[in-house]
């Protein structure tokens, strides 16, 4: 589904990604871990199409298409979804109207008819239940004044609405209380199928107890320096990153 080969990217003359290789197949869950500042969010943003980053090398194909050729909205319509580490507050833009516009533009792209107001609200109700998000939150302007946890929950709600093929969750667990973590993870698990894939960026094993990964990768200084199965995450939890850093410097 997603194939990343030797991806290198920079921002403001600083190279952040130094040759990433990653293969994600339909049905898989990949966890990306790594120390602060190693480039996890950068990778997520580059995949979502943030234009501030300049691609220096490499290629990314998504379902056979050259992803790097596409604009952020085209990528989303192809089925990529990024749950932001720091969701943006957009004053004055109604969450519901925004969601309806997004969904209908995606549906149009998929050759489906736009949803009318009634069916849209019905769908919304259904997905609201899934992630247990309150209507009153959605009646407000997009993320404006939302608490950290509310923002994260809103990201997962949007994901549920848009039903992406590849979801990239960037530290969705940070800022969530213990109950919310369960609810949100449950929501993600319910949306998993053999046709879609998830990349979870996280610092904690806690999330991976709920969303169990097939593969765990360690990103360090803009490179994937170690890959393994879910046991790797447990090892990291126990030992931290120093041993990996040592391996790399010896390497």
């Amino acid at each position, binding site marked *: 589904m997603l194939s990343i080969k030797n991806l290198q990217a920079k921002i403001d003359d600083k190279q952040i990604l130094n040759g990433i290789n990653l293969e994600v197949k339909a049905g898989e869950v990949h966890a990306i871990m790594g120390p602060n500042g190693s480039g996890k969010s950068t990778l997520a943003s580059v995949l979502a199409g943030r234009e501030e980053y300049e691609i220096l090398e490499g290629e990314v194909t998504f379902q056979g298409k050259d992803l790097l050729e596409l604009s*952020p909205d085209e990528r989303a319509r192809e089925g990529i979804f990024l749950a932001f580490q720091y969701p943006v507050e957009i004053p004055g833009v109604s969450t519901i109207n925004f969601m309806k*516009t997004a969904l209908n533009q995606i549906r149009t792209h998929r050759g489906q008819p736009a949803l009318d107001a009634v069916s849209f609200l019905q769908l919304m109700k259904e997905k609201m239940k899934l992630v247990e998000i309150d209507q009153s939150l959605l009646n407000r302007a997009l993320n404006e004044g939302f608490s950290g946890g509310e923002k994260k929950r809103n990201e997962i709600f949007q994901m549920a609405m848009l039903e992406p093929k590849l979801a990239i969750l960037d530290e969705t667990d940070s800022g969530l209380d213990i109950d919310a973590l369960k609810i949100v993870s449950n929501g993600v698990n319910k949306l998993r199928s053999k046709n879609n894939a998830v990349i979870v960026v996280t610092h904690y094993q806690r999330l991976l107890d709920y969303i169990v990964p097939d593969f765990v990768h360690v990103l360090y200084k803009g490179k994937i320096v170690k890959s393994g199965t879910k046991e790797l995450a447990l090892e990291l939890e126990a030992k931290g990153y120093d041993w990996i850093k040592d391996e790399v410097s010896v390497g």
Partner: protein
Amino acid sequence: MSVLTTDKNITTQIASFIKQKVNVDADPIRKEALEDFERLGIPHAKHEEYKYTPIARVLEKNFSFTPSPASGPIGSIDQFFIKGIDADTIVFIDGVFSKDHSKISSSDVKVLNLKEAIDSKNEIALQHFGKYADFRNDSLSAWNRAAWTEGVFIHVADKVSVAKPVIIYHITNATDGEVTAFNRNLFVVGKSAQVTIIEKYDSTGKANHFSNFVTEVVVNENAGFEHYSIQNDQNNRFQRNLTQIYQKNSSRVNTYTFTLNGKFYRNNLNLILDGEGIESHMYGLYLLNGDTLADNHTVVDHMKPNSFSNELYKGILDDSSKGVFNGKIYVRPQAQKTNAYQNNRNVLLTDTASINTKPQLEIWADDVKCSHGCTTGQIDEEALFYLQSRGINKDTARAMMLYAFAGDVVDHVPNEKMKEYIDALISDRLHKDF
């Protein structure tokens, strides 16, 4: 065009134009006004209040100020009317009252031709006419005072709440050459009375036209006055307005200035809060493109204690348009417990668009709450990316953000029909497709 054109030339040119149009010598007031005008002159580029609004150059370049042939019949003007709003309408064509097109059905509002009201010695009109605007220190106002020909006098008696808004359509027929108009209006709102007045400016034809209007408004004790200015004309409109509003105890004023299309606007809006317990709101929205210049100069003058004023002006500037905002707040020594707020926010969509914004607070009282803020920025790229990352194409995402930005002003429009009307204008302008 001559190479050596100075403001002195344009002033002389305009003075002789005034003399051709009206018999200044027959009226001591006009005579005095003309002298003031010649003394003051059209403001030059170094004039503090016209730094970014080169009115002398603009007038020189675009107007001959010589009599032009009378325009032919204007044809249908229905296109200019605001649909779906039950209102009394007054139509001026080239500054001349058009009885045929006007329709006043309310009995609770008195609408007269100002010239006739003055000539027939209408008591209320005489009591207030020319008493509020500063004609002696502002050359454009002096020009209007010397040259004005017609205008509306609206009087709402005490305790009368006028149900229907009154719409004044100022229409210019610029098919057969340059047109100028110098109207004077006087609105007197009686004690505990209430009225909504909408002024809209339109034109047909391609010739340049300039209007220099002065409107004086008196809002008596406990009265309410709502005023809309809709500036959405073709790009051959050049306009200068002075709206001078004088407020008494416990009166309420809301003004809404929407500037969308046209070539050159200088809007002077002055609120004189000469009473206690007053509440005033000034809202403005300018969506500019092409090479439009829109200059909003506002003054709020708190003269007495315990009053409240709030000003919110927002602008979106595209292409090589220019915006100017100058907001003066005066709080006089005895105006303790004043609350005065001002906010001007701008979005520049291109490198060639510009805005000059200047808050000017002069506070002589010590127990007051005043704040002002102005921001100028580009469209928020991070927010744009967020919207796009959900599948919304860039143009729609931009429109969404700009519509939200503008909506902040539109939301304050209390009249539902007007809100719908303005919302439609703005939606269209911003290519809203969501």
